[in-house]
């Protein structure tokens, strides 16, 4: 139909595939820049507000630039000591959750990855279905029970709760990792004289190390950010996200921004390290099953 409208080109058009048309070409950089700005603006805000003097933020037109930055709020928060409790709790819980999650999920994920394809697929879907339940559907019951056995306001209780969300997810990631390790490597190891456990420890896990590390970072991130279970299972000692919420509820803007910055900065680092593994290609396999 369009063959008549578009005269056949002599030059193969392949090379121009990704080039946009003229008007778009001019506008394109602006569009990219504006999107990047929109994405970055909130981060800028958090940091800016956390160092803004009290006067700069009020009135109907708050300033977008801080001319006289101050570390008062940071000093205040650090000196008041109210930061250390939540920071420690968040750190310890996130780290413990990560370790336990890997220890439980990695061996199981290996077994799943070696199941016949049909069963493997069903199991993985089953893992993801647990995500369809609202956290509350699990959390309410868990919190009532934990309250009875004294696991509220307890590091262990929160670790156990975070594992609920973390385990299916990292098992899923790790199944993908282990699937990429050829079986004949295991067979070679068995012929070379390794036991089943030896094969796992000397061949399979070392090869999966990168994937396991990525999964671990994801779990750590999840636990560090987690709000809902923390809310249900906390009466006294807040985690950092709860502390942010408290500041939103009662604190000044600067306090809120400062705690938010404390919570966010480590994560930006983690994501920076993760970005290499957040390639779209890594997801393609997951979609196609």
């Amino acid at each position: 139909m369009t063959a008549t409208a578009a005269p056949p080109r002599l030059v193969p058009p392949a090379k121009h595939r990704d080039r946009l048309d003229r008007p778009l070409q001019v506008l394109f950089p602006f569009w990219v820049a504006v999107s990047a700005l929109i994405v970055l603006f909130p981060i800028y805000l958090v940091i800016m507000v956390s160092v803004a003097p009290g006067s700069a933020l009020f009135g109907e037109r708050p300033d977008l630039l801080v001319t006289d930055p101050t570390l008062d709020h940071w000093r205040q928060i650090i000196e008041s000591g109210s930061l250390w409790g939540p920071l420690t709790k968040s750190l310890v819980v996130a780290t413990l959750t990560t370790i336990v999650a890997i220890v439980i999920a990695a061996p199981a994920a290996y077994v799943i990855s070696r199941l016949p394809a049909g069963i493997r697929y069903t199991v993985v879907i089953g893992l993801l279905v647990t995500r369809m339940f609202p956290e509350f559907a699990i959390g309410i019951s868990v919190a009532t029970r934990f309250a009875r056995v004294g696991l509220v306001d307890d590091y262990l209780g929160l670790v156990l709760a975070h594992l609920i969300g973390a385990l299916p997810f990292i098992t899923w990631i790790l199944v993908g990792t282990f699937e990429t390790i050829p079986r004949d490597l295991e067979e070679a190891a068995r012929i070379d004289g390794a036991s089943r456990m030896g094969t796992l420890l000397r061949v399979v896990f070392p090869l999966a190390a990168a994937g396991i590390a990525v999964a671990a970072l994801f779990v750590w991130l999840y636990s560090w950010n987690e709000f809902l279970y923390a809310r249900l299972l906390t009466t006294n000692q807040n985690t950092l996200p709860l502390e942010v919420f408290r500041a939103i509820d009662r604190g000044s803007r600067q306090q809120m921004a400062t705690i938010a910055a404390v919570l966010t900065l480590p994560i930006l680092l983690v994501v920076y390290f993760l970005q290499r593994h957040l390639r779209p290609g890594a997801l393609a396999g997951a979609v196609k099953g």
Partner: protein
Amino acid sequence: MSDDGAVGLQTGAPARPRTGVRRWLRNHAFEVALATPLVLYIVVLTLAPIVDTFRLSLSGPRGGEFPTLATYRDVFDQEVFRTAIKNTVIVALLSLALELTIGLGVALTLNAKFRGQGLVRTLVLVPLGVPTIVSGAVMLLIFSRSGYLNSLLFWVSDVVSLLPGVDWSFQPLAWPVAGGWRTLFTIAVADMWKVLPVVTLIFLAGLQSVPPDVYEAADVDGATKWQRFYRITLPMLVPFITMALILRAIDAFRIFELALVLAGRIEPVLATYIAERYLPPTNDPFTSAAGAVVLFALIMVFIVVYLRFVARRVETAR
């Protein structure tokens, strides 16, 4: 052959046919031992609590008789609950629409080749690193009465007022607490910002899964840019759109932190309703459990409807 329904693991000693479960267990002791902790965990701390929540929701108010639908009748009688359902659906659909269109736009942008592409791709990931609660806090900074959106709108109204004949003096708004669509819109925007990286990554994966020679073939066939997008890119993206939509829908219906921070009690959603009922001072796990079950049902209905009707129609329309 597998008369006992034994599952032969492909590695390790395969099951011998015509033997019992015990034989299978002995052959697969290693695998069973490795998988047991996870299975136990999921049974005890995921499946059992889910069943328990259903049980709670079917108990009478304050834990009376069982089973009864009294608690459900109770919650549906509450106006705040009905509002919560309505708000949840509106926020979910709104944020899904925003996320998918903008996510697709950003993915298309990032899929083009330009200088600094790598840097921009990294930047787009930034919201992934921002805790949800923090993005809620930031949205407060932006959308509140003395927030930066108002600041921007003031600036725009100043500029516009310079034009002759235009008289628009902007009245500052506290968006989240304004109630109604403004509040819900704020929540949806906040959610969109937060999950943009995930949606973009999924779409980018889809775009990159289209082999370049398909485009080349379309070019040779004389397709215009729009036809190329509509006839090739979009159809090939369908599985990725489905995946993004389902993943996001599950989360969008469960939206909690952002709604809590931005809307509080002004515009309840189901999750904030559930939390409010459960936590002190209400301390009522029964209505809270009923709310959780309703939320689950909502998610299920959405996914089933989508897969049964929408996805299928797109499939056949191609």
